[in-house]
């Protein structure tokens, strides 16, 4: 059914062959899903909180311009500087310029998906700014010249041995698999960086329109250090991250980490209102908020608006059976898993990512765990529809579907097709099953036996069933 071998197939084959990788991802994902169940059960009104979170997002994204305007006003009133970036390249150029204008040379970074999306690290390096990731996971990714494979747990694909080897190689520390010692090595290494850094870069989890507050959720405290210690703080914020009021924040904070790791709240939740004031003991001299569009506004105006409700909690990745088996790298995107299957083709070339919306059984577990109830299977079906309407479905697959729809169009054709299929699968058959179909159909029996149409279909049996019923009725 697949007409050509794509880059996605290649990536999938690579991970499928790596049993230990799949085991790691599968176990970690499952344990997070189980923690989620425990954590959410402890909040008596969790389902209502999800409803509320969904409604707030829906309302905000519908009135995005209104809330963005208010947010911008407030950030400015607080003494922050606001920039607009239409594209990833604009965002990178903007941040590089801020660094150059202020003579900034050493940046510390808090894990932020937006900066992954724009490829900020490489752009800053090219502009002569040295960037250090300070989230432990991202630090290891950077050290090992790797890519994150999960939006919350970037090194879910790495085991202790690979981490230990990377640290030994890059930092020259003795080999150890003890997580605490490894963390200490990273901390020691970063301590010196924190002393010298002059630029702090973060994303934004929530931007509050009412107050101009930016909220960053982390688990390691590096977020706080990275945004207060350096002279300048730049926050790269997707425009969809705005929320109306400070009280709304409490709703999102209640659902965010419970949905992913099962923690009641992230360990560090930092709220920042502008640069350092005279009375403040610390804080940056300048706060820049760079608002990133990069395709979001187009999404907001189209039929996929709902995907902008996403708060990047990562729960859908943990739930997804496909993600568990192919891992984050297979998607070749900053956003893997269910959220990525929708977002990636929308933010990038849909042709290049044509496989992503197809590579789903539409099982819907992602929708069940999503704190803002995004109907991801529905959005995937819409993307498939765009492909079908735009003739982007490979011809062989299209032909197969045409044949199927035709065969199912009338009872007579269906009957006839059932018989053809029964006799067409007779070679290699064992009764009603076939374990070795010939020719191009062989693919269907490569991994599992396949059933043949029954010798007597239900329609054939109905006659006697009906008569039987008539007798008992009398």
């Amino acid at each position: 059914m697949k007409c050509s071998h794509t880059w996605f197939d290649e990536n999938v084959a690579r991970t499928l062959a790596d049993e230990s990788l799949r085991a790691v991802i599968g176990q970690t994902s499952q344990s997070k899903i189980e923690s989620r169940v425990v954590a959410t059960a402890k909040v008596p009104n969790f389902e209502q909180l999800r409803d509320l979170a969904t409604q707030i997002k829906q309302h905000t994204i519908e009135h995005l311009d209104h809330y963005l305007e208010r947010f911008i006003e407030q950030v400015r009133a607080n003494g922050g500087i606001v920039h607009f970036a239409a594209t990833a390249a604009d965002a990178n150029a903007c941040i590089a310029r801020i660094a150059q204008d202020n003579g900034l040379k050493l940046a510390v970074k808090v894990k932020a998906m937006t900066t992954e999306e724009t490829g900020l690290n490489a752009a800053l390096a090219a502009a002569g700014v040295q960037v250090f990731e300070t989230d432990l996971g991202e630090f290891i990714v950077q050290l090992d010249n790797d890519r994150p494979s999960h939006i919350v747990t970037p090194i879910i694909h790495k085991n202790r041995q690979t981490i230990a080897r990377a640290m030994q190689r890059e930092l020259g520390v003795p080999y150890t698999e003890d997580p605490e010692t490894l963390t200490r090595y990273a901390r020691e290494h970063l301590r010196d960086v924190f002393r010298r850094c002059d630029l702090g870069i973060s994303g934004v989890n929530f931007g509050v329109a009412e107050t101009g507050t930016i909220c960053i959720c982390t688990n390691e405290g590096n977020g706080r250090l990275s945004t207060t210690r350096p002279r300048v703080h730049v926050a790269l914020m997707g425009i969809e991250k705005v929320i109306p009021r400070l009280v709304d924040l409490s709703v999102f904070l209640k659902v965010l980490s419970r949905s992913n790791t099962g923690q009641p709240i992230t360990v560090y939740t930092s709220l920042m209102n502008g640069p350092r004031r005279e009375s403040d003991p610390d804080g940056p001299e300048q706060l820049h908020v760079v608002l990133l569009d990069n395709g979001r506004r187009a999404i907001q105006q189209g039929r996929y608006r709902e995907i902008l409700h996403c708060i990047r909690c990562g729960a859908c990745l943990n739930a997804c059976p496909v993600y568990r088996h192919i891992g984050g790298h297979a998607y070749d995107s900053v956003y893997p898993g269910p959220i990525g299957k929708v977002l990636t083709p929308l933010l990038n070339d849909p042709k290049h990512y044509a496989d992503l919306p197809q590579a789903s059984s539409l099982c819907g577990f992602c929708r069940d765990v999503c704190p803002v109830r995004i109907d991801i299977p529905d959005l995937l079906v819409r993307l498939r529809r765009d492909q079908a309407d735009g003739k982007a479905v490979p011809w062989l697959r299209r032909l197969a579907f045409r044949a199927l729809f035709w065969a199912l169009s009338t009872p007579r054709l269906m009957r006839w097709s059932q018989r053809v299929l029964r006799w067409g699968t007779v070679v290699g058959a064992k009764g009603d099953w076939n374990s070795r179909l010939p020719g191009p159909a062989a693919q269907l029996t490569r991994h599992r036996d396949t059933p043949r149409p029954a010798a007597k279909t239900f329609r054939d049996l109905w006659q006697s069933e009906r008569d039987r019923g008539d007798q008992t009725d009398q």
Partner: protein
Amino acid sequence: MGKSVALFVTCLTDTFAPRVGVAVVRVLRHFGCDVRFPEGQTCCGQPAYNNGFHREAAAQGRRMIDAFDFADYEHVVTPSGSCAAMVKHHLPELLADDAEYAERSWRLAERTYEFGTFLADVLHVDFTQIPAGTSRPVTYHYSCHLRGIQTIEGASAQVSRLAGIDYRPLAQIEQCCGFGGAFGAVFPGISNAMSQDKVTAIAATGAEVAVVNEAGCSFTIEGTARRRSVSVQFKHLAELLAEGLGLMDDQP
């Protein structure tokens, strides 16, 4: 008081699992329903819908509505949760702008039930009063497309509460079996990995019978189990109930 029911057997059940259709008819009759089989039926349009061919899905949906003319029965019952979801949720959405069919699609949606939910919600069947019909250990696989129709707890209780059943709960019950329609054919590797997990989980329960209420899931899991020589018998809830109620012989 008997209910009049039209059976929507679905294309997969008709073709690959006719015994399930027979079991549904017998169980419904046992509970006093008058069962008809509208001969004009074929498919609800789900394959077309799921794969993005919405014009074709709408055409198939109209044929479905024509085949199920409501004059002489109150309810439509189907052994498949995914086809029930198609009729209940997606058909009205596809035909919303169709002057002739929009309203009829709503009426069909309202009257359509997945088999298990029909027993529970309309016939108010007390499952604890139905004998398990087998002394062998039984597990239950939750088909993904029941989401939005029936909860995991509600669906599995229809098996686990049967009188005298040796019920073995399935680990990671919310995980998909890897069927997914065309998905399995287009991405056989991923699909297979998912099916392998499912078969491993089923085998780990020690169950000798697995209840799977969806033809597509059933033959995906059974096909994988056969290849691995894991000997578990697969049944639809209707078959299990029909056997428990003495309406059908247990399969050899």
